[in-house]
């Protein structure tokens, strides 16, 4: 084949493929919900889980009859784009979601940098944004259409640290470690304050680069301060497990905390026995005594679909749909501004089983935070067990 023919056939193939991939004409009223999450790279599993949860919620709402507004029935559809955890891609995703797909509601977003990019565009267009991102700068009165769908360190830490200090009254010093990014920096700030309030001395507070795989020097350094407690803050579970394993080899033993650790699977995978006794603040357990039947069922499906148990981040992408449904029906409108105004006052049923609403006036100056239960968990005998639950 000549080069020209090669070009022509490839161009034809691309054209055909693009028509085949073009969205089908909708036969019913559909509200498209945009999701901006990492779908590739190290955090890919969070994004995939988020997509799964959004689709699960959308399916459940559809089966229950959809959303009724002004006599019309609407169903949700989840559109998930990859923001690769950086602002440039976050902007591309935002542009595609708002300007190409015409989305007016963001069902969930993950990653402070891409969320800032998203928020910037969303506000110029009057769209409503749900986010799991922790940056407090995203949430004040200047951002009236942004809502948070999971607990952040601000909510979790006072409860978690309070519990730990109560359980281990002899522990007087803590060494902290966090990943070197927005999440880590925000967590460290809040944690430092709370540990201080509990009269625990902070002997070290370090950062490490995400993507590190060799944790020996880091573990050695932490152990050298001889702390009673080692707090790994926002370190992802897999990294945390590796660090605890190294600490175990060196011979350190003490109170282990992964403040905003979201799941035990990664922790156990890399930490093995060293994961025993670790406290986590954003973990979710699926044992029969604390979880509802519905939770256990969905979690089993999730494990098949994505390979891991669900965590608090992904659950937020389920809750936001039910919150949106409640707000839309309360406002009797699908206009994002009206829905945003109704949101602070609605109640809806969260994945955790209870009926909740929003709060946050004190901390953020605006009611925008889902009033989710704060669950303290600990790894006991290789299983994640719930040891405390507070509803704020």
């Amino acid at each position, binding site marked *: 084949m*000549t080069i*020209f023919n090669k070009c022509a056939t490839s161009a034809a193939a691309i054209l055909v493929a693009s028509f085949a991939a073009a969205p089908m004409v909708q036969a019913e009223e559909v509200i498209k919900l945009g999701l901006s999450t990492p779908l*590739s790279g190290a955090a890919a599993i969070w994004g995939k889980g988020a997509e799964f949860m959004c689709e699960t919620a959308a399916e459940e709402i559809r089966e229950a009859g959809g959303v009724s507004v002004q006599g019309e029935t609407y169903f949700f559809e989840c559109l998930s784009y990859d923001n690769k955890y950086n*602002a440039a891609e976050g902007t591309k995703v935002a542009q595609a979601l*708002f300007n190409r797909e015409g989305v007016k509601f963001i069902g969930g977003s993950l990653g402070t940098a891409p969320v*800032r990019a998203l928020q910037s565009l969303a506000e110029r267009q009057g769209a409503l944004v749900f986010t799991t991102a922790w940056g407090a700068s995203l949430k004040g009165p200047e951002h009236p259409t942004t809502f948070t769908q999971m607990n952040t360190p601000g909510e979790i830490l006072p409860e978690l640290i309070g519990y730990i200090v109560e359980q281990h009254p002899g522990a007087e010093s803590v060494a902290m470690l966090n990943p*070197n990014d927005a999440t880590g920096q925000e967590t460290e700030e809040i944690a430092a304050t709370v540990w201080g309030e509990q009269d625990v001395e902070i002997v070290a507070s370090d950062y490490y680069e995400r993507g590190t795989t060799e944790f020996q020097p880091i573990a050695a350094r932490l152990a050298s301060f001889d702390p009673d407690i080692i707090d790994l803050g926002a370190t992802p579970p897999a990294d945390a497990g590796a660090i605890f394993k190294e600490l175990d080899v060196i011979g350190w033993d003490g109170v282990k905390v992964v403040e905003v650790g979201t799941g035990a699977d990664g922790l156990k995978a890399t930490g093995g026995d060293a994961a025993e006794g670790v406290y986590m603040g954003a973990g979710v357990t699926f044992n029969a005594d604390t979880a509802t039947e519905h939770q256990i069922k969905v979690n089993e499906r999730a494990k098949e679909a994505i390979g891991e148990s669900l965590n608090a981040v992904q659950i937020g992408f389920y809750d936001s749909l039910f919150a949106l449904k409640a707000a839309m029906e309360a406002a009797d409108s699908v206009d994002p501004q009206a829905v945003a105004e109704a949101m602070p006052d609605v109640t809806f049923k969260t994945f955790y089983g209870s009926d909740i609403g929003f709060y946050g006036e004190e901390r953020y100056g605006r009611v925008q935070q889902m009033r989710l239960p704060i669950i303290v968990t600990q790894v006991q005998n290789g299983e994640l067990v719930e040891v405390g639950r507070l509803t704020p």
Partner: protein
Amino acid sequence: MLKSTSTISWLVFAGAALLLSLLLQDLYLRSVLNLIAISALLAVSLRFVMLMGELNFAIAAFVGIGAYAAGYMSTAMEVPFWLAILIAGIGTGIVSAAFGAVTLRAKGPYFLLIGFAFTEAIRVAYSKVPALGGTSGMVGIFPPIAMDPWMPFFVMATVIVLLLIFFILERSDFGRVLFAIREKEEVARSVGINTFIYKIATIAFACFAAGIAGGLHAFVNNVISPGDFSYLMAAFALAYVKVGGEDHFFGPILGAIFLVSLSAYSLGFGGDEHFIYGGAIVLVVLLLPKGAVGAIANMRPKKAHVKGGGHAALEQ
């Protein structure tokens, strides 16, 4: 190539691009057009340095320096946006000259890999400076509201001016010296040319353009983060050059148009975007080693064989 044909092609190309940037109303397509323009500038800048035989893989670092400089000047120092971009570009050029002075002693793969190491180091450095927003990025980089409808035009015009300068430089004696350096540097030196100064000048101008591209990027996206400027940006720029064809000035521009459009299209496939992008690059590199321009060049009939004018070409 006759001067008149290239002038005509230039006028047609520039005119079409500028018209498009003025008339396009769809918000989404405007954003893609901005992206294409900035990417084309990067690709041409990269190719410019390739003219002297080196692969400036540090280009992403310089785009980042330009973006952060422009962003900081605009948000923290209230410098008017066009001035911020200009100063950012000049600053980046100066930094790159220093970089080049130090690193150009290393050649080929070493220069490539130093560029790679430099990019990653600078990226980590941004995340440690709170004034630059750390890892969550710098926000609020907006041009004045009045500029909003004109942004694509501004971006396109700036890019076209710089592209023109690159083109003129390449066609001038400066360009000829660069070819000489690439082929046999010792010979160029033996006739008294200070090759080191030429190399530094090349890097400086190429990175001045990269810095301007960075400034444009900052104002177009309004938010920048260290992760935007990783080695992948340089890798993509190189892909634009290779896919478009490195032997011709317009090659990188074609490559940028094609690949950026492909990436915008494949965004809808979620996590598979990189897969499609990577697949496209691999396919083109394997099937069209001279890039699109090379393929088109192969289609032109060789003058000696054609009788009866150009009609024969259409039968291929």
